[in-house]
């Protein structure tokens, strides 16, 4: 009897996995949990990436400064590299300040990454332990948040930014939020 039980283990393990997959299918990893939309940004203050330029940034930077964008990135994340030119383009358009949240990264690697690919950010902050990212509800890197003038999270994109998303969703939302501010 005990021997039989032993042979059932692989099946049991697989069935547990299958349940996870089934639940995973019902969730689109690209959709923001509604709980965080229209909530104020969490209180935080991030130091700059060690050895890098700037003073870091905090929740104060995201309030009363028009629409702002927080882009979560890490040097070890391959999709971040893919989306980086688009983040740079977004920053060049000058429609909103783009802040970089460097997630669980080594300062040396992060700085090298920025030197290599260009640094489009108004300022960046190092979240070495990932604490702030958790408060932001970060699923995985990269992620991009749009925050309105009052410091409220209004939109979130999970995964690498695409040209299509940028044109069809991100830019129109920024425009709409900008108008809402009466600017």
């Amino acid at each position: 009897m005990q021997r039989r039980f032993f042979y059932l283990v692989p099946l049991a393990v697989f069935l547990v996995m299958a349940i996870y997959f089934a639940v995973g299918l019902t969730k689109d990893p690209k959709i923001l949990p509604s709980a965080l939309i229209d909530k104020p940004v969490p209180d935080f203050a991030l130091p700059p990436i060690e050895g890098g330029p700037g003073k870091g940034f905090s929740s104060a930077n995201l309030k009363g400064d028009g629409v702002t964008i927080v882009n979560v990135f890490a040097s070890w994340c391959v999709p971040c590299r893919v989306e980086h030119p688009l983040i740079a383009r977004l920053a060049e358009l000058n429609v909103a300040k783009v802040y970089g949240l460097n997630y669980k990264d080594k300062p040396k690697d992060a700085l090298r990454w920025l030197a290599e690919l260009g640094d489009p950010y108004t300022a960046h902050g190092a979240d070495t332990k990932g604490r702030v990212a958790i408060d932001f509800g970060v699923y995985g890197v990269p992620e991009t948040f749009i925050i309105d003038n009052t410091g409220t999270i209004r939109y979130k994109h999970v995964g690498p930014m695409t040209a299509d998303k940028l044109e069809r969703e991100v830019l129109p939302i920024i425009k709409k939020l900008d108008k809402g501010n009466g600017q």
Partner: protein
Amino acid sequence: MTAEIGHFALILALMIAAVQSVVPLVGAHRDNAEWMAIARPAALTQFGLVAISFGCLTQLYLSSDFSVLNVIQNSHTTKPMIYKIAGVWANHEGSLLLWVLILALFGSAVAAFGANLPPALKARVLSVQAMIAVGFYLFMLLTSNPFERVEVPPINGQDLNPLLQDFGLAIHPPMLYLGYVGFSMAFSFAIAALIEGRVDAAWARWVRPWTLAAWCFLTGGIVLGSWWAYYELGWGGWWFWDPVENASFMPWLAGTALLHSSTVVEKRDTLKGWTILLAIITFSLSLLGTFLVRSGVLTSVHTFASDPARGVFILALLIVVIGGSLALYAWRAPSLVSTGVFQPISREGALLLNNLIMATAAAAVLLGTLYPLMLDAVGGDKVSVGPPFFNSVFIPLMLPMIAAMAIGPMLAWKRADLKPVLARLWAAMIAAVLAMLAVWAWATDGPVMGVIGVGLAAWLFVGTLVELAGRIRLFKVPARESLRRLARTPRASWGMTLGHLGLAITIAGMSGAGAWQTESVQAMKPGETVTVAGYDFTFDGAKDGQGPNYSIVRGTFLVTKNGQPVATLDPEKRVYTVTKRPTTEAAIHSTFWGDLYAVVGDKDKATGAYVTRIYFNPLVAWMWGGVLVMVGAGITSLTDRRHRIGAPAGRRVAGTAPETVKT
């Protein structure tokens, strides 16, 4: 017309597969030879039909038929011929068609060349193959039809993702799929054996060539993908622990374990249940890879366009195939009786250790890949798992395995003594220490892992040679006698020796490339020089040019060392006309000790300087070379006499039987 022919051929293939999955199986159960015999023509016809279907899709691409959705989305008239062909499988629907083509190819190979298989086993194997095929045909026809037409055809197509317009990547998917799908043979044999309730040495020997072939293809496919990332993504890295890379690496780990455990079944008639389980797991992981890439549950740069309906279908398919086979396993495997008994310190014990470590490594990679998904499903913290996790789990697992790898082949079957074996490995020990000292003297401040890696590589390399020397009794008998023994060494043994030597070389390469990469990023004006790892790179400016469907900025570097010219490097930056997407083409000059690697970036309009990135990647050529040796080892083993002459003699099985009575 062509699209419709392809579509109908696929539907016919589904129907034939449906017959093939039932009739021979029932025939085998009832011992009805005629019913069993249906498997052969069915498998051959199925392959013919899928080949027609695949040919049709290829023709649609070659003739740029923009009334077909798939062609619109992935092709363009200006695309070079080779990428029109590669475009066939560089998308979700087409790659599935390639998948079933290869599945049908393997099935027809069993049908055509499996004359020495017992008829019942052959019928069951082909039935199981057809069941898998039915699942995939249905998936294609219901959710992913590559032949879908559009009502109003556009003038031209949207072109293929430029990153994929590359020779290495054109042949990468077919290789990878030959590997993935090749493991379906081991799976079908395992299921057939479970139904029959019998696993013996003969069974192991029939499965082995299929597993070996699949392993060779998968190894080649993985390394091609890695090589592509190395020269095309342009930042000198070659492995990123991306979910899709993991998806190909997990079956490789399990498949490697399977290769080793099937040896034990063949030679010693034990570890049967475990080997069957490994065969199921290896193919399950291949299927899981397909699920992860296509269902959209995980985000990856490689992900094909995802669609919830497809995800549900794939999940159902996984539950039927994997769940069904594991249920069959739970029901039937307990009745598989192993007769061989062995002590922990023995060849079997060493192979089992290899298996446990490989399986643990595969499980760790699986956990790391699925962890974000699982945590999300239970509503937990949001996490992401990156290379820090994989490196800190995977590397410590591999260290003891490589250390044991030099010892294992020298242990006797059944029961061995560790002391004399370790004593014989003195040369390997000295080599490891010398290599570590040499590396440490060369780069005192380098990472410790690099030093350990090179030391282990030397240990494994020399240890494998010591084993070979022992086998041919080098210096123990006259040289002529040794040479005669060398010539008579079976190719399967050569496969082991070469495979382990290849891995040693690969590990040395990985350690070098991982630990001592030097890079230099700067803005350079023409005429300026930077020095990286003792090489002087002089930037000779950049010129604009035009390719078939892209524009080029091509930089030129003259590389010298101590004033002697070494190489000219011409990295390119391309912008594809249709998609406006840029790609980098790194220029690489390989030398024995490392690669000179240069990338040219954007021009700064104000100063006229170009951003350039220059790397020295030590020992990278060793890494690719080592993997090639491993693939060569697999092929060598595949040509072993006992595979070529086919049916194993009953004598051998009988010969091993009496031994098993002892202890």
